[in-house]
């Protein structure tokens, strides 16, 4: 049953995500793509939507996947699933705050989890990089394909702008314009 499946999958994703922002991305890739709910390129498209709409990425993506798979009820199930582990754990922590704060087990686990998340996100970004360039066949002809060079140029220029702290929404808008212009010209 899709509703239960959505709830349980996102419960699992919520329970195993440590850290904010894109820490959830590797798990989303693993679970959502493996289940055939979304293509990787659809997830990358959706990251642009999530960056341009308010709210946490985790809530945005779970609502979107749920809604695509099971309408409003699906969105409700997946969002409830992603929120509940945090909610329950924080209530427990708030209650036993002193014990939690001084726990050597918690700090030990976190000393492994923090670098793990960085490695996992690195792998997720690599995989997304492959998706962005996957429409090009790997051969010598790739270097004579103007579309390939437009994509490479966009990543480099937008990368520089991102490091210069240009707002993500501005970067998405500029990338969209480049995509449209290149699409009609090439």
């Amino acid at each position, binding site marked *: 049953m899709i509703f239960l499946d959505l709830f349980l999958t996102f419960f699992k994703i919520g329970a195993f*995500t440590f850290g904010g*922002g894109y820490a959830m991305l590797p798990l989303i890739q693993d679970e959502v793509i493996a289940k055939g709910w979304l293509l990787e390129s659809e997830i990358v498209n959706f990251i642009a939507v999530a960056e341009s709409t308010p709210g*946490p990425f*985790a809530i945005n993506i779970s609502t979107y996947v749920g809604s695509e798979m099971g309408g409003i009820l699906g969105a409700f199930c997946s969002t409830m699933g992603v929120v509940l582990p945090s909610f329950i754990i924080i209530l427990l922590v*708030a209650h036993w705050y002193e014990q939690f704060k001084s726990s*050597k087990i918690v700090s030990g686990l976190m000393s492994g*989890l923090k*670098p793990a998340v960085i490695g996992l996100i690195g792998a997720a970004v690599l995989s997304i990089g492959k998706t962005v360039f996957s429409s090009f066949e790997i051969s010598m002809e790739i270097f004579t394909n103007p579309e390939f060079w437009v994509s490479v140029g966009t990543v480099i220029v937008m990368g520089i702008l991102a490091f210069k702290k240009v707002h993500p929404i501005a970067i*998405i808008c500029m990338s*969209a314009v480049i995509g449209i212009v290149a699409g009609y010209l090439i």
Partner: protein
Amino acid sequence: MKNRVIKLFLTFFRIGLFTFGGGYAMIPLMQRETVEKNGWISDDDILEIIAIAESTPGPIAINSATFIGYKTAGVIGSVAATLGTVLPSFIIILIISFFLRQFQDIQAVKFAFNGIRAGVLALLIKAWWNMFKKMPKHSVAYAIATGAFVVSAFTDVNILIVITGCGIVGLVTSIIAGRRIKQ
């Protein structure tokens, strides 16, 4: 009490509605609304909340909302604050998802998303670099990060196993390091 719960809901609804990018982007607004405007918690509490949110699973925004809600008005308060944070995203994305699919079939939109995917890749590289810079600078951390990267990128091992394994490695190495300091 009842008023406080409603106020929590409305405050966190506003925080959810006006933060783009979620997570850490939410903290300045959260600080202004809960510390300066309402006096529910103190600046020190905010720092502690960030520390807790980082060491518990789940999105930072939800962790902080639940925690502040609980501190301010108990379990009902935590429900109100969490619901408030989630609802704006939920409603907006639900509306968008209804026409995103049809929208994606338009040729110009397809072209736009070809460019956007390259832009998103750039944003993700930047986001990753920011996290990498904040990583503890010692060999065990580098080894765990590299190990997680290699296993996740080049094998089919389930990510939940990688995460659990790295947590255990961190725990074991910190226990060993702790013993050494005692000796």
